[in-house]
């Protein structure tokens, strides 16, 4: 039985916080790719790509396997269980509410002075 901890989710969010890694995930969302295919469009060295790949793998978002001399990467879209996705959704829901709270606070600050303190 899965013992859910928040850390896998944190790892996933952390892994996706980097634009280079998001570009790699985006590429993999169209299908598996070799490390050099992944690296080709990116303005970074192959070893940097390998480092980023390691972070994505540790977060459970990407899996890679070496066949012969070629390491092929694929998106591990089943990495999250239903309950993990569900909790992630809940967290994202509240994040979204806070985006809206920030917008509301900015808009109401422009309209009026501070309400009674």
């Amino acid at each position, binding site marked *: 039985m899965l013992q859910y901890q928040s850390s896998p989710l944190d790892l996933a969010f952390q892994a996706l916080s980097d634009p280079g890694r998001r570009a790699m995930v985006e590429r993999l*969302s169209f299908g598996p790719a070799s490390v050099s295919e992944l690296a080709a469009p990116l303005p970074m060295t192959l070893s940097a790509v390998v480092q980023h790949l390691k972070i994505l793998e540790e977060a459970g978002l990407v899996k890679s396997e070496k066949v012969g001399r070629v390491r092929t990467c694929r998106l591990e879209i089943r990495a999250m269980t239903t309950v993990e996705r*569900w909790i992630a959704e809940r967290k994202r829901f509240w994040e979204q509410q806070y985006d809206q709270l920030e917008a509301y606070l900015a808009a109401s*600050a422009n309209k009026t002075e501070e309400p009674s303190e």
Partner: protein
Amino acid sequence: MTVHNANFTIERVLNASPARVFAAYATLEAKSQWFKAPSDIETLNRDFDFRVGGKERFHARWPSGMVTDFQATYHDILENERIILVYDMFQNGNKLSVSLQTLELRPEGDKTRLIHTEQGSYLVGGREAVVSREHGTTWHIENLMALLEGREQEAFA
């Protein structure tokens, strides 16, 4: 019936005093300005009684036909400092979770650090089948793509 316990924390530094942030929670008028769905929904019930022991409810039907029901009870309110509530979340009449939510407002200069700590019991008996039937396996890809593209996320509640 299986229960999964999970905690998460969200921290935000908001560009407003704790008093203004607290005020955004304290009245239905203010809260409705930001605590809302990103898409057009039909509100079925909306209760709001912001005091210790008071209840809040947000019962709504989404364009997809999904019905969600947020039912909260305020357990602790300290003006400009803290709000603690317990909420049940239902989807299509099924109870998904019971959560203890603690909101702390800490002044940081003329800003406020909002610390949202949520301790939840997620009830998943038979629920996994419901989720996969309703959302299919495309859910994760769609949301991941939305995340990548910075588009508005499909919210849950």
